[in-house]
């Protein structure tokens, strides 16, 4: 049961991730397609990005055995491969097919997530795969004929005495394969490293067969291709890893050290890949040289230390020295705890690393030496031999010899002289000569402080060895009492250091790749609530009656500090839940692209304010309404121009988001024909929604009709719209998140839909005011000014509406205590204050009794138990723990409009006049 649910969890996180990938690569794909239409050359980086996206999906999907997803991703990859390898240039039809692939994948993910099989989508999958195949085939044919051509070219070039240019061109082809290999392998290794048993060895008691299978197939592929590319050292390493995997099955216990060794291998493979990439790009020639030499088995190949090779050598030296430093630390530790398998594994992998890099540099002797050392440790691992002090000392000797070698190398000389004797010692150990004989036969060279000190000079990075390293020498091989020696380095300390030092590549890589983690919203909400509590608790301490009135200098200083930290914490906690709206907007790019190509209208999309942050749940819910609105705009709003410049668009759609008060505004504007009020009314009367006696309707009411379910002014139903469902859906969805939608339009000049969505969780700056005995928070953004007015500024209309004259403007007064029936504190306008608030184009003056202060308010939604209160958008908790209601200025104005007969909005018409059509 438990395990099943864990898999489910994994699966759903896989789907979430894949969906993210799909969302991420889609806009790139469209941009690519659009660029191609304008005959721009595709950007390699973008193609690679898309390729990687598909590849990642493929890899993980394979792990979950989602065959259809794998098949799709694989085909898409194959298609992209043509463009990546530079054989072909992309064309727009290919990007279209790839877009479809993404669609089908998205569909599949939804099906999988809902627990259904992929059967439903089989038809779509088949058709897309078919189309992909079509493209691939045609490209393949084309490239085959082309490659024949290039081959011919090459042949003729060779005949005509190949110059350096030819050499490089063929090299760079190999280089390209190399790059593909590197990026693919890197992805595979990363997947492997994310396996459960690697990431949390302590948690799972055994391997999972599926994970093992996954690893071994991946490694198999990599081993084959690296062998093919002549990367023997890498192939070797991969084969080792394969062996390791092969030796495990699901019943094998996961031992920490063992897994550590495997992850060490993985990290090594990674660093190999880095190296290949680094050299493959700008120094292909050299790289090829090396692989050739190792392929041919050219023994002690000592390349000339010239030019770029010198650079490599420097890299090699600094790397090796780093490895040696780690190795020595480990050896000291190992001497202390000979049976510690984790340390044994670390030492082995360090030797392995050195073996690999020396192999790559062509220092065969060094390679053999390190290989031998590694072999000894492997024997120890397999429990063929028991690691004794003698062995450790021999290993120490190896490290010394290597250090000497590197030191000589730094001076430009190659000196393998010390190697033979050391090799001999190692050979003896592995062949299992009894202890006593060892002593008689060899005298190990002393490892003294001088060497250690000279090591320090080698490089700044060298960690100074503890002085009592020398005690290494004093240990007699026959005294097996490690406790006699008290190394000054605390093993725990070493461990700490080594965790940081030993695998810098691995850790850093992860950091840059995964900058975010998934956290459930519930946890975040809990965090935010706790922070809110903290703020209140802080206030309770600071404003505690016990300390009131006391002169406490230190206390005040401390509380000021506390206050600052709590404020920062609050800001951070709240920001965590907010995500930029760009994710939702990005999807619309695709929609506009599709829609405009299908309708044959050329529509440009302009996105404004996509970094506006909104609550995650809100972001998810506005996606659907946006889709409908944009479809409508393109289908009905924007008209095809009869005569136009080819580059001039038929119309624009502007997608904008911004904060206003406690709300997020999401605006969809178009430069289409606008709403036709007459036609709307005609239709509405024909369908009986509006009766003749209701006429005349204001524009606003008329626009409202278009949200009526089933209402459409369209005579024909197109593929996308015209059934009158869309806007109904929009309104319903907005109702769900307590948002609303306003329409502004002018015939012939376009139309704009303004969605106002309350932030369920956000901070606003608010002014805290007192009305009677209650306090309310007015969003600071909607406040224009605060006035104290005189009696003579007030005019009362015959229906009792008071108007205040401020400069040359007549502002209607809303008496808050009347509206909320809060009893009458002081009804004289002169004694109160007027807060002039504005909402869109509407202005009103709120009569309040006092201003209590300004504060950052954390908006909390009203409980579902209470129906939505008109004029209240939510509430917030004040510093003293009291609840204050946040006024919804727009709602308040609307409310007083309806109650007082529209006195507030004398200038409604102005709203529509000032609506400027989209750019």
């Amino acid at each position, binding site marked *: 049961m438990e395990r099943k649910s864990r898999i489910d969890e994994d699966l759903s996180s896989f789907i979430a991730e894949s969906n993210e990938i799909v969302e991420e690569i889609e806009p790139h794909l469209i941009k690519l397609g659009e660029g191609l239409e304008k005959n721009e050359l595709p950007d390699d980086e973008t193609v690679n990005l898309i390729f990687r996206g598909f590849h990642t999906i493929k890899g993980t999907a394979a792990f979950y055995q989602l065959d259809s997803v794998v098949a799709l991703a694989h085909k898409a990859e194959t298609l992209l491969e043509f463009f990546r390898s530079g054989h072909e240039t992309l064309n727009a039809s290919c990007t279209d097919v790839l877009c479809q692939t993404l669609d089908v994948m998205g569909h599949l993910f939804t099906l999988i997530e809902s627990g259904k099989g992929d059967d439903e989508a089989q038809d779509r999958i088949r058709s897309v795969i078919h189309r992909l195949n079509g493209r691939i085939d045609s490209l393949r044919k084309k490239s085959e004929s082309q490659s024949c051509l290039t081959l011919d070219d090459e042949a003729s070039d060779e005949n005509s005495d190949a110059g350096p240019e030819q050499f490089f061109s063929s090299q760079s082809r190999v280089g390209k394969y190399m790059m593909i290999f590197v990026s693919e392998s890197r992805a595979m290794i990363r997947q492997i490293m994310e396996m459960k048993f690697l990431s949390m060895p302590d948690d799972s008691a055994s391997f999972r067969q599926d994970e093992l299978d996954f690893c071994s197939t991946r490694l198999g592929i990599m081993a084959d291709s690296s062998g093919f590319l002549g990367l023997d050292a890498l192939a070797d390493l991969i084969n080792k890893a394969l062996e390791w995997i092969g030796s495990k099955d699901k019943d094998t216990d996961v031992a920490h050290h063992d897994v550590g060794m495997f992850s060490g291998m993985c990290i090594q493979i990674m660093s190999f890949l880095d190296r290949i990439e680094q050299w493959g790009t700008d120094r292909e020639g050299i790289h090829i040289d090396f692989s050739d030499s190792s392929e041919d088995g050219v023994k002690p190949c000592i390349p000339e230390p010239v030019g770029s090779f010198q650079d490599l050598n420097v890299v090699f030296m600094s790397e090796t020295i780093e490895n040696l430093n780690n190795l020595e630390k480990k050896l000291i530790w190992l001497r202390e705890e000979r049976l510690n398998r984790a340390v044994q594994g670390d030492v082995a992998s360090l030797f392995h690393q050195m073996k690999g890099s020396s192999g790559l540099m062509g220092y065969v002797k060094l390679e053999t030496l390190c290989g031998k050392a590694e072999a000894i440790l492997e024997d120890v691992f397999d429990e063929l031999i028991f690691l004794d002090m003698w062995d450790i000392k021999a290993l120490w000797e190896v490290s010394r010899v290597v250090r000497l070698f590197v030191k000589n190398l730094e001076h430009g000389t190659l000196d393998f002289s010390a190697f033979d004797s050391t090799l001999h010692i190692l050979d003896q150990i592995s062949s299992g000569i009894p202890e006593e004989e060892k002593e008689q036969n060899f005298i190990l060279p002393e490892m003294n402080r001088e060497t250690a000190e000279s090591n320090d000079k080698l490089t700044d990075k060298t960690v100074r060895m503890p002085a009592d390293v020398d005690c290494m020498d004093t240990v007699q091989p026959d005294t097996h009492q490690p406790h006699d020696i008290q190394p000054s380095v605390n093993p725990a300390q070493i461990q700490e250091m080594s965790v940081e030092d030993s695998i810098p590549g691995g850790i850093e890589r992860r950091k840059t790749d995964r900058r975010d983690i998934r956290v459930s919203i519930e946890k975040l909400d809990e965090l935010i609530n706790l922070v809110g509590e903290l703020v209140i608790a802080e206030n309770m301490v600071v404003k505690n009656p016990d300390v009131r009135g006391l002169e406490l200098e230190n206390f005040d200083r401390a509380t000021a500090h506390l206050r600052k930290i709590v404020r920062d914490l609050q800001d951070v906690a709240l920001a965590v839940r907010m995500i930029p709206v760009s994710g939702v907007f990005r999807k619309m790019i695709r929609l506009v692209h599709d829609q405009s190509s299908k309708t044959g209208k050329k529509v440009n999309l302009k996105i404004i304010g996509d970094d506006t942050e909104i609550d995650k749940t809100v972001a998810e819910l506005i996606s659907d309404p946006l889709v409908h609105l944009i479809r409508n705009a393109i289908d009905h709003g924007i008209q095809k121009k009869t005569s136009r410049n080819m580059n001039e668009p038929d119309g624009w759609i502007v997608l904008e988001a911004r904060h206003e008060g406690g709300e997020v505004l999401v605006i969809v504007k178009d430069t289409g024909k606008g709403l036709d009020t007459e036609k709307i009314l005609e239709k509405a009367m024909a369908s009986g929604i509006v009766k003749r006696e209701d006429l005349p309707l204001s524009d606003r009411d008329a626009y409202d009709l278009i949200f009526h379910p089933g209402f459409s002014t369209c005579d024909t139903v197109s593929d996308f719209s015209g059934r009158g469902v869309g806007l109904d859906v929009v309104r319903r969805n907005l109702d769900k998140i307590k948002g609303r939608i306003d329409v502004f339009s002018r015939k012939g000049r376009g139309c704009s839909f303004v969605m106002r969505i309350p932030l369920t969780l956000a901070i606003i700056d608010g002014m805290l005011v007192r009305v009677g005995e209650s306090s309310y928070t007015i969003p600071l953004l909607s406040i224009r000014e605060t006035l104290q007015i005189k009696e003579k500024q007030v005019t009362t209309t015959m229906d009792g509406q008071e108007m205040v004259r401020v400069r040359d403007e007549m502002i209607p007064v809303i008496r808050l205590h009347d509206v909320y029936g809060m009893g009458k504190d002081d009804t004289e306008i002169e004694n109160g204050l007027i807060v002039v608030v504005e909402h869109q184009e509407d202005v009103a003056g709120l009569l309040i009794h006092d201003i209590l202060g300004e504060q950052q308010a954390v908006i909390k939604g*009203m409980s579902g138990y209470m129906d939505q209160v008109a004029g209240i958008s939510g509430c917030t908790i004040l510093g003293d723990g009291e609840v204050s209601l946040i006024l919804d200025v727009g709602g308040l104005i609307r409310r007083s409009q309806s109650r007082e007969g529209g006195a507030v909005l004398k200038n409604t018409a102005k709203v529509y006049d000032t609506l400027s059509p989209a750019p």
Partner: protein
Amino acid sequence: MLDEHDFFSTEFEDEDDEDTQKDKYLSFFVGSEEYAVAIRHVIEVIGMQKITPVPEMPDHVKGVINLRGQVIPVTDVRTRFGLEVKVYTERTCIVVVMVRDSLVGLVVDSVSDVLDIPQERIDPVPRVNQREGNRYIEGMGKVADDVKIILDVQRLLFDE
């Protein structure tokens, strides 16, 4: 031997454990009568605190309070039953209940006890007096010589 698992299951999971909450009721006074609500609805009992009034609510909804960072509405049971308004005293309590996934506070005169009332000791509502308040009653619980009026929280809060 009591192993760890048993220990945890009895100690920490009993909030969700239907069995341990079965037949348990929290009783409280409103006016002279003692009422009870099933304990599975009850989240906690807190003392009276400042209620922020919310406009345009039915009379019995007194407003909202801050329950550790969560804003929850508060209903006065007294007003809900149509009893005369009484000034809140230090014995006045707010019983926080969870109904339909939302928290609501019930203002009661005082909380008295947690009772065990087995199902067979609960009688249906007598049909004699079909007055307003009766529709909130789930049954009459007989405890020793006393009778507690068991309330249907759902109806108490959501019925119009």
